[in-house]
């Protein structure tokens, strides 16, 4: 198979970028999209041109490092798939393929197709945890959890943090990511004590990072390689509004003097 690649090249954050065109020839349909780019990079290197920088690590669809907007869709055209598990057999011979980085002001481009997703980490750091330190813990079977609840929590927790939801959202919102993280713990008994403080803190951090707002397009759900449902966004909205309107403000304020 032969392809024409139209790839976004950019020296670094802040410097302007532009598309470059490359031709790749004799690509096997069994080759993955990233392996096709690997081959391109080898050819570029051999001819003395700088290879295209793109993120990837596990190459089995779980680390969330790979990105790429391929022909206008984050992670390409196949639903429920990361770029690293996208194969060239999904494209038609001779096709022009446009490859762009995630576009979001919260994810500045670092080089070519590589973006900085540390905003996601800061959202997690704001409250995406149960405050529990290492050491002896209660016997886990002392708190039974309905399997349906555990499964739903896992549906949310299986988010790989790739950022495709942000890339896909016409508003550049991080609602699917944040809501998945919030809902994972909000569903489980372990997450209850900090439930409302958590949602408030994480939403505030999300907004501070400069993500857009949700307009219920559901593009995020369609782009999510783990097919996480937008139902979690409604869930988070509910928790957030409840925290804002009903729960005590700064419940820990009085505890700090202890």
């Amino acid at each position, binding site marked *: 198979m032969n392809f024409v690649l139209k790839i976004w090249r950019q020296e670094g954050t802040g410097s302007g970028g532009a598309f470059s065109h490359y031709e790749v020839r004799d690509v096997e349909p069994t080759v993955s999209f990233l392996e096709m780019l690997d081959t391109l990079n080898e050819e570029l290197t051999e001819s003395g041109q700088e290879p295209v920088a793109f993120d990837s690590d596990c190459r089995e669809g779980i680390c969330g490092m790979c990105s790429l907007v391929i022909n206008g869709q984050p992670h390409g055209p196949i639903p429920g798939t990361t770029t690293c598990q996208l194969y060239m057999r999904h494209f038609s011979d001779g096709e022009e393929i446009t490859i762009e980085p995630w576009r979001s002001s919260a994810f500045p481009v670092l080089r070519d197709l590589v973006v900085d997703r540390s905003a996601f980490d800061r959202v997690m750091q704001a409250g995406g945890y149960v405050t529990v330190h290492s050491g002896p813990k209660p016997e886990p079977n002392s708190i039974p959890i309905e399997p349906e609840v555990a499964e739903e929590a896992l549906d949310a927790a*299986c988010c790989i943090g790739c950022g495709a939801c942000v890339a896909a959202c016409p508003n550049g919102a991080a609602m699917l990511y944040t809501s998945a993280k919030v809902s994972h713990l909000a569903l489980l008994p372990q997450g209850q004590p900090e439930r409302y403080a958590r949602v408030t803190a994480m939403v505030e951090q999300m907004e501070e990072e400069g993500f857009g707002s949700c307009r219920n397009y559901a593009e995020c759900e369609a782009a999510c390689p783990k097919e996480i449902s937008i139902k979690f966004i409604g869930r988070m909205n509910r928790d957030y509004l409840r925290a804002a309107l009903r729960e005590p403000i700064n419940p820990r304020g009085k505890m700090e003097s202890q």
Partner: protein
Amino acid sequence: MDLDARIPSAPIEFMWDTHKEHLRLVGPRNRPKYRILVVGSGLAGASAAASMAAMGYRVDCFCFQDSPRRAHSIAAQGGINAAKDYRNDGDSIYRLFYDTQKGGDYRSREANVWRLAELSTAIIDQAVAQGVPFAREYGGLLANRSFGGVLVERTFYCRGETGQQLLLGACSALAEQIHAGSVTMHTRSEMLDVVVIDGRARGIVVRDLLTGKLSSHAADAVVLATGGYSNVYYLSTNAKGCNVTATWRAHKRGAGFANPCFNQIHPTCIPVAGEHQSKLTLMSESLRNDGRIWVPRQASESRSVDEIPESDRYYYLEERYPRFGNLVPRDVASRNAKEVCDQGLGVGSSGLGVYLDFRDAISEYGHDAIGARYENLFEMYERITGESPWNAPMRIYPAPHYTMGGLWVDYDLMTTVPGLFAIGEANFSDHGANRLGASSMMQCLADGYFIVPLTIGDYLSRHPSGDVTTDHAAFSDSETEVRDRTERLLSIQGTQTVESLHRELGRLMWQDCGIARNADGLSRALDEIPKLRERFWNELRIVGSGETLNQSLEHAGRLADFLEFAELMCRDALVRDESCGCHFREEHQTSEGETLRNDRDFSHVSVWEHRGMDHDPKLHREALTFEALPLAQRNYKT
């Protein structure tokens, strides 16, 4: 080289408790005075960094990925063992110890293995408290399944994403500490040297992968949690970025490297499809619970799968190992797959593959029951190969997966360099010559949550805090070395890409130091590797500079270390003139083709001391003793 493992003198059941009672402590007020560097943010690194920071130490954590959560622990699929005995099937600490020791073919240290089994239950408690959504029974209690070569159901799991959930749990604890300011996280940062001053590890030199800037970090102790080195084979189930660099550089600074030839080849991976393949994908071993492995009996088989009658299907594991059948340990399954493929019975276009067939399981348990167990794995297989396991058997082949070898550590998980600790896959300690399924995460988390946070205090309490800064000449010397090396890599300007050279090394290692090894092959590899290394340093081509994100340069630095390390690995494989666990020397096998150990001469850990690339490394031995569990020949047949 001092190989005193400092094993406490107490009966094995009380060893860890006794040891904890006698460890020296650092008081809560003094802990913030000590700085600890944790390199790596996988299960071991994240759990250790979070635990130590929560205790009050000042921790800096480093990872080369863009987020700690991306470390390759995330990809562990199957599950995590714990001796909870929830299934009332006779499990106990002893039995988990027994299975691990036996699975490791009696090449691990009893004291460490016992402690691992003992701590296994606390890990589950810890993870559940963090909100890890383990699978549950209808009644809301934790579910278990059996896993790879054991006779009890003790494996806890979250669908096929157990590693992801455990890592997210550990990383959430890490996130809390980052937020609290007690951990400083350095992402896209690669450790390129350990700085040793007066015989103690006092810091590291790190390259910022975005700017190429080198920075020195001084500390009171350094913890390496940098994973394994399966990528020495180029194709493996590891992430593209996994590398030996941190442990190798530590080795060059004096840390003994133990059992480098012990590496596990995982039996259930998707076979190689073509030349440009960049990685091998693991299919969870749990598939072997219901799938039947077979190849056609005839090498010349030309019929399609459906047309091959039952009598012409060779269920080689079931026939050879009636008791364990398809659930034999990983090394046995891998070696048998290679053997039948070597006999020309392999399937698929390359002939390097065997069938893993769910036809019988589907007809016995029904589509829904099998779907509930394996749906996501079936989808994954179909996504990659374009073929559906519902219609045709999967094709699988072994692939390098996990390395039992690593930096030598004592009972406190400290390497031969005082103040330098190694945890998780980066050390050698618990899995002997072969790792039992669902125990890698157990070891990482035992090390990170429960062991190193305590033992490091004992070390720190013996030394004043913060008495070295990066002004020390050793740091600038080390930075200069690292800088020179990077510049040298950039200045070669040859013709070969780093990928092509890495592929060459991989082929060579797979051929001569792979599933089965022999003296001739290993000697040949020992001749070839230095030649390849020389070609690397003469023919490599890297385009771009060292002052920006340059992924070829990163890869080249890692390959340079693999090219040195590969030689040690082959040397170790050659010197270990016995078969044990995953290390199968063709010269040493039973009449039935099983591994044949030589306990008289090889009941030891081989620990290598680096003496410069111009000299051969020196071999030291830590003798292994077997008191809790007497030596026995592994037998999975009856």
